[in-house]
Each structure stands twice: as C-alpha cells, then as structure tokens.
C-alpha cells in the first residue's frame, strides 16, 4: 500500500494526519460542474487542512479555450460559492493556485496528449511531483474510452512515480457495457491503478457502519437471522431530475441509485468481518455478499414515476414534463425491491431497498428491525402494543445511530417505545469532511478500500441486469403513479404489507 509513509521516520506516532506524496492531478472535463462544485473545493479544503504536500498540482483538461489565469479565477469563484469552509483565504489561495494549470484540448486530439506529456514532465521538474499522477475522469461516460485509449497510446499509464485513474459513475449501464468498460480500462491500466468512485463510501457515517459493527462486540452476536426480522435501506431524495433530465431518462432509479449506492450500503451491513482492514480484504467480503444474493424475482420489485405535486411546499411539475424527458417516458424515478442473501448469516431475512426522487424528505437510512419479544408477560399490555427493537443508522441528515426499545411509563402500567440516540453532531463537535475530500486523499495515498473493485461492479450488474431486461420487455406501466412529495406509489406499500410489514415512517 503506502510504503512511503513507513519509510518516513517522522511519520510514526499519533495525531498527525497522513499526507500523500507530491503529485499532479489531471482532471478531464475540468470545465464541468463536478470540478467546480466538488473536486476543487475538496482539494482546496485538503490544502487548507495541511493534508496536501507542497508541490501538489492540478491540471484541468477540457475543450474550452481558457488560460491558466482564467481557469484559476473560475475555480476561486467556485470555491467561494461551494466550499464548506467559506470564501478562500487569499494568501493560501495564492499559494495553492500557483500549482493549478489549464490544458486546452479535445479528448480525441493526439496532439493535446503529446503536449500533456511535456507539461507533466515540466511540472515534475518545477514542483517536485516526481512523476506521481492521478487522472480524474469527470467527463460524460461516452468520453471514457477515448481518454483511456489516448492515455495508453501516449505512455501516460506508467511513469517514474505512481499513476492512478479515478472513474466517476456510471460504470456502464448494464452488465455487458460494464464489462466492456472494465476491459477497456484494464487494457491500459492495472486493476490496482483504477479507483472507481462512489461518493457514498466517502461519507463518514457510511464508514462508521464498519466501525459500529466491528469495533463493538455487543452487536455482532445479534447481527444474525436468529435475531433480525428484516432490514430496510432507504435513500430518499426531495429533488427531481434537475437539469439531468436527458441523462436520467436513459438511466432511471435502479441504475442511478440502487446499482451503486444502495448496493454498497447493503454490502456494508451484511458482510462478514474482514480478516484485516485493507482494500482487498474488505472488498472480498463485499463481493461475497453480492454473489450470495438470490436472483431478484420480478414480483419482488416495484417501480414508480412521479407526477405533478409539490416539493418543500411549492408546486412542482411531473417527471414527464421535466426538460429532456420524453412525454411518454417509462423511466422509473422510484424503485422498491426485496432481496434475500442466501448464506448462513442471512438466509430467510428479507432486505427491503427503496429509493426515489421527489419524496417528502431527504433521508438515507439503514434500519435493522429485530424480532419481537416471543411472549408477553405483562398482563395489562397486549403483545401487539409492543414495537420491535429497531436499530437505525442514519446516513443523512442528522447523522447518527438510534436504538428503539420499550420502557415503562412512570406511574402507569403502560409500555412505550423510547429511543436511545447517538448523534454525530452532538457527540463530536467537529464538522465532517466532504465525501470527496476523503476519497481524493485516499486515492493519492493509494488506499482503495473505499473504491469499487471490478468484480463488485460486475456482480452488482449481474444481479440487476435481468430486472432491467424484464422491465423493458414487459408491458408499459400506467406512469406517473405517485405524486411528487409523497412517499412513492401505493403499490410499494401494498408490496411490503403483503409480508406483514410496513415501511418505516421517516
């Protein structure tokens, strides 16, 4: 992994955060939204917290006719608007911006890559970056193959230091395309150079799932089919498709959310303890979960699409009226499904996943519902008055963990559920870093634990591609079938009610 740190004798001991070796990050698609909204603010905040080495440099590669100066100005504005630490510190920015360059070129223009080779060599000389490079693909996915092939052709996949490539989602739109993309990437790079980013894994609360499970001894013994009734994973968004209508209409909730974010959450909740906490041990366990999932039956899925309604008290239009969306679109903006993991720990325990757009609240949560008390000894209380114990891990907002249990009402012979709450905001008075900060730093440090490996991506698509195919081949549904601002289609409620359960009220 990161041998350089072991070599630096000043790096022993507590307190000091790890910092990577000096390197250059080349961002393809540097004129895009992601660069301005997430990447550069994240890099700036890392520099602000002294987590980046001197000499760290950024090269923005895009088609627009900009200069180093105009690019720097644009990024400065972007940080002023989007950074969690507020407007830039002028002196710090002046120093950071010295290492930012703009590289004009078309993604398929061989000459632009030849110039890039020279430019990177010059940066290595002037700023001591020692040939260490990160290529970040922040372009539309159509451009990935071209860029990857050009990098290969111009010998940019290898250098005198290390070279890594970060690829944004989507990793394909079904199993075949994901395999094809992986084949293209791996014809130029080795798997250990490839960092497929799923920003959900960079969230502190998501990482805390593993800490919670494997740094505490009291939960693991009950993390098991004999104690758990079922698991619910919800990722609800209040936003619609915003200005991504054209892209989203070819994608849908299953591809856009379930295939990556929800499957990742599922893996973290369901995986066996890895033998060590390193990139491959953790990802091996996650892949085992994905491979143990029984093929999902079509009747265990529910699709929805929002119609006109409201969001945050304001009327909003329906999905089919959104810009870039076909007026007869059959794309789902809501998915609920049930799946089973056929292994010794989870056999018979249903996992309910749901995700949708234009739901009433923005909330991501994993809820473990335990089995009810087997018998009721308190004569005055009927058993069905008792609520089962629920352990809820809230990913966002109000990050934290709560455990619901029953308690006696003082002075009365009644039992009421109460919750024991742990909240990040309350226990640790520090603001969590943005997901991208953690992930960019991890990549520069060569730690792939929080990135998705090739076999994970393919295992997840193997599971979901048959559903996509069955949906496409089936008859069209009477969309829209839920009102914007409601908790999804009635069918989803009926679907879970058939199992004698209900969705959590969030």
């Amino acid at each position, binding site marked *: 992994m990161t041998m*350089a740190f072991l070599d*630096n004798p000043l790096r022993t*001991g507590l307190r000091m955060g790890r910092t990577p*070796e000096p390197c250059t990050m080349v961002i393809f698609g540097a004129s895009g939204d992601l660069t301005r909204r997430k990447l550069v603010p994240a890099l700036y905040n890392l520099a602000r917290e002294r987590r980046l080495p001197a000499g760290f440099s950024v090269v923005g590669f895009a088609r627009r006719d900009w200069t180093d100066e105009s690019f720097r100005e644009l990024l400065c504005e972007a940080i002023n608007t989007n950074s969690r630490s507020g407007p830039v510190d002028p002196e710090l920015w002046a120093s950071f911006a010295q290492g930012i360059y703009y590289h004009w070129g078309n993604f398929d223009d061989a000459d632009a890559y030849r110039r890039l080779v020279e430019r990177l060599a010059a940066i290595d000389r002037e700023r001591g970056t020692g040939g260490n490079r990160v290529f970040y693909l922040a372009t539309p996915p159509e451009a990935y193959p071209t860029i990857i092939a050009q990098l290969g052709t111009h010998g940019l996949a290898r250098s005198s*230091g290390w070279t890594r490539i970060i690829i944004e989602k989507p990793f394909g739109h079904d199993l075949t395309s994901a395999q094809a993309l992986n084949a293209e990437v791996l014809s130029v790079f080795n798997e250990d150079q490839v960092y497929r980013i799923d920003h959900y894994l960079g969230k502190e609360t998501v990482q805390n799932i593993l800490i919670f499970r494997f740094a505490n001894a009291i939960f693991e013994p009950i993390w098991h089919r004999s104690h758990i009734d079922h698991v619910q994973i919800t990722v609800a968004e209040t936003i619609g498709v915003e200005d991504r209508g054209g892209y989203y209409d070819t994608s849908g909730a299953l591809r856009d959310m379930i295939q990556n974010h929800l499957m990742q959450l599922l893996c973290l909740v369901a995986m066996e303890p890895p033998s060590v906490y390193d990139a491959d041990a953790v990802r091996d366990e996650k892949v085992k979960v994905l491979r143990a999932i029984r093929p999902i039956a079509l009747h265990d899925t529910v699709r929805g699409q929002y119609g006109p309604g409201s969001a945050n008290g304001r009327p909003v239009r329906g999905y089919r009226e959104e810009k870039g969306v076909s007026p007869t679109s059959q794309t789902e903006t809501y998915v609920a499904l049930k799946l089973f993991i056929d292994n010794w720990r989870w056999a018979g325990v249903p996992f309910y996943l749901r995700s949708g757009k234009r739901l009433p609240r923005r909330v991501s949560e994993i809820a473990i519902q335990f089995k009810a008390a087997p018998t009721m000894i308190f004569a005055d209380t009927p058993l069905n008055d008792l609520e089962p114990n629920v352990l809820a891990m809230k990913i966002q907002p109000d990050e934290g963990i709560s455990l619901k249990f029953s308690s006696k009402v003082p002075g009365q012979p009644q039992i009421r559920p109460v919750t024991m709450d742990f909240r990040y905001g309350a226990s640790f008075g520090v603001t969590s870093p943005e997901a991208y900060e953690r992930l960019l730093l991890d990549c520069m440090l060569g730690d792939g634990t929080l990135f998705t490996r090739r076999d994970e991506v393919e295992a997840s698509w193997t599971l979901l591609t048959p559903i996509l195919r069955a949906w496409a081949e089936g008859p069209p549904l009477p969309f829209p079938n839920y009102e914007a601002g409601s908790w999804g289609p009635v069918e989803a409620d009926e679907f879970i009610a058939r199992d004698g359960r209900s969705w959590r009220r969030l």
Partner: protein
Amino acid sequence: MSQTAIDIGAIERELRQMWQEQAIHPNAGGQAVIRALTLNLIARAPDDAWAEQILSVAPGLTAQHPNRTVIVIDRPGTTVEVQAQVQALCTLTNAGRTQVCGEQITISARGTPAGQLAGLVLPLLVPDLPVVLWAPGPQPFAQPLVQRLYRLCDRVIVDSTTFTEPLTELAELATFEQKAKGAPAVSDLGWTRLTPWRELVAQFFDSRTFLPHLHRIDEIVIEYAAGTVVNPVAALLFVGWLASCLKWAPLEEAVGVEGETIRLYLRRPAVGVGPAAIRLVSVEIRPSLSPARAGLASVVLRAIDNQRAEFVVAQTDDAGHARTRATVADTPPIERMVKVDPVTLTDLLSSELRLLSRDRTFAAALNLAGSLARRLTSYHNDPL
C-alpha cells in the same frame, strides 16, 4: 459566605435537582436537553487568574467532550475556606435541535489542606469514566493536591509554556513521565502546540526525492518567540522529537549557551560510510528577533555535506499562516503558504482529551528533551 467544609450529599442533590428541572421545564427555546458525559475532568487552578481561564474554556469543551468538570481553585492562605457551586454546561445549538449538556462543579478553596480537597473531589467523580487531571501553571508535580490525585487519574495534562523555570521543570516532567511509565499518561499542552510544526516538517519527507536528505541533516536552527520568561522548552521538545525519530543521541557535555542562544550537538549515523560511522548534528536554539505569535517562529533543517538541501518552516507576520520552503541543490525551491490557525486553549485540551493512551512519540521526545535540559541546567550552574 465563607465556610470550612462542604456537604458532598448536598452537591449531589443539587445536581439531581438540576437535571429534573431540565426535564420538567425545558429551557426558553423549548429544546430538549441530553446529559452526556464522556469523562471526568479535574482542573486545578493555582490562582484566580487561572480559575477564570479554566472557567472560560470549560463551555467550549462540552461541545467535543461532554464531561463532568470539577474545578478546584486551590489558593494558598492561612485561614481555611471552601465552598462549592454546581451548574450545567450546555452547547449552543440551532433552535429545535437537542442540546447536549455536561456538568461543572466549582470548588473554591483557600488554605485548604490537600487531603481535604482530594477527599472532596474523589466522591464527585462519575464512576466508570476516565479521569483527566489538568494542572496548568508552574511546578505542577510539586503541588500537594496533584501529588495526591495523579495516581487515580488516567491522564495528567500540564502546560510547559507556563513554567517559570523552564529547563528545570522540563527535566522534572521528563523524570515524572519515565517514572509513571504510562500510568497515568502525561500530556503537555506545549507539545500539543507543536503538532502543526511536526506535521509540516514531516510532510517534506513524504516525497521520495526528499526523504534521503532527512538522513543526512547536519544543522538545525530553531527560533522561538521570546516571552516574558525565556522558555526554550518547545524548541527542545522539537529537537527531542527529531532526535528520537531519527535515532540521534545527545553528545555528552557538548552544550553551550551564549546569552540566550543554546547550542548543542547530537550524534547521527553517517550515511553511506559504514555501519559504525557517525556524524554530528549541530543545533542552535534562540529567541526570535522579530517576535510574532507565541510558540516556535521558525525551524530550519540543513544538509551541507555533499549535496546541499534546506527545509524551512516559518511563521508569517500575520496570524494564521506559515510558509514552507524546500531547496535541494540547484533545483528551484518549492515554496508554499499553509494555513495554521491560532489555537485556543480549548482546542489544545480537546486534542489531548481525544487521546486515551500514552503518547509514545511524546514520551520519547520528552525523554530526550529532558536529558538535554538536564545538561543545560548543569551547564548554567557549572559552565565548562
């Protein structure tokens, strides 16, 4: 009103009542209140000025480490006087969000025997939670109350920047740390202040091209802001840290003091010559001519033999930044500006409270700095 004894039962009743009232009458904003305690903090204030500082730090600490703070104002005096006061300390939150509160008990004493004070403090500790003793001010280990309490604590926090006889007290601190062997763990807020400096110096050598130069450093120059007391402890700790990480050993008797400038020599393994060969590292520690903020002003690491290399971290004139520069042979220097926010006492304590075990890096640095301090004090007493 002055009194000579306190009823522990009364303090406990008052605490209970305080929380019950919170449950029945939520505060003005209608917010729910959570009592959260992660540790016991005993803070000994040697005088009223320190009492005021401790009281101002405690609320900020609640946000990161909700705790029960027992503040003991341990003033000297001929008449015995002691009284106690209880209050809840709550973090400020947005309306509608749950408020987290810790507890604060202030014992204000004058001329009270240490045994009596310790007897008051011990029953007030929350069971099964770590106990941290914070003893700012000079001569912490000479205080009878500290002597009585430290064995029961998980961590003792002192502050070497408040020492009045810095070299002697640094040597004492090192002796105490060695003797304690990790129980209790010892922390020094003066060391905590060095974290950004250590980070910035270490960062130079994360680069593979610079790393070899770390093993061939020949000269170190450290400047520190001169306060009312000449206190080179931070600089000595910094040298102690470098030396312990790089396996440098102090050279017997090789210390010198000219005015306020300290010179000393350490032995390091020579690079590329043979296993037994050594070279000398010369260290110069002096008060800064242009005093900026408190603490270190600049650190320079130089390799002069064969290929020249220089690594510099220096405070800038404004508060909040430092400049780093790495120059190796004829290549252009790599410079940058970094943010180093001024730290508050609350930040420093918070960062110490985050540690649960002994800080071995600190222990090693302190051990070495302690032996340097011992040589320097004997030089002062008996110059060669």
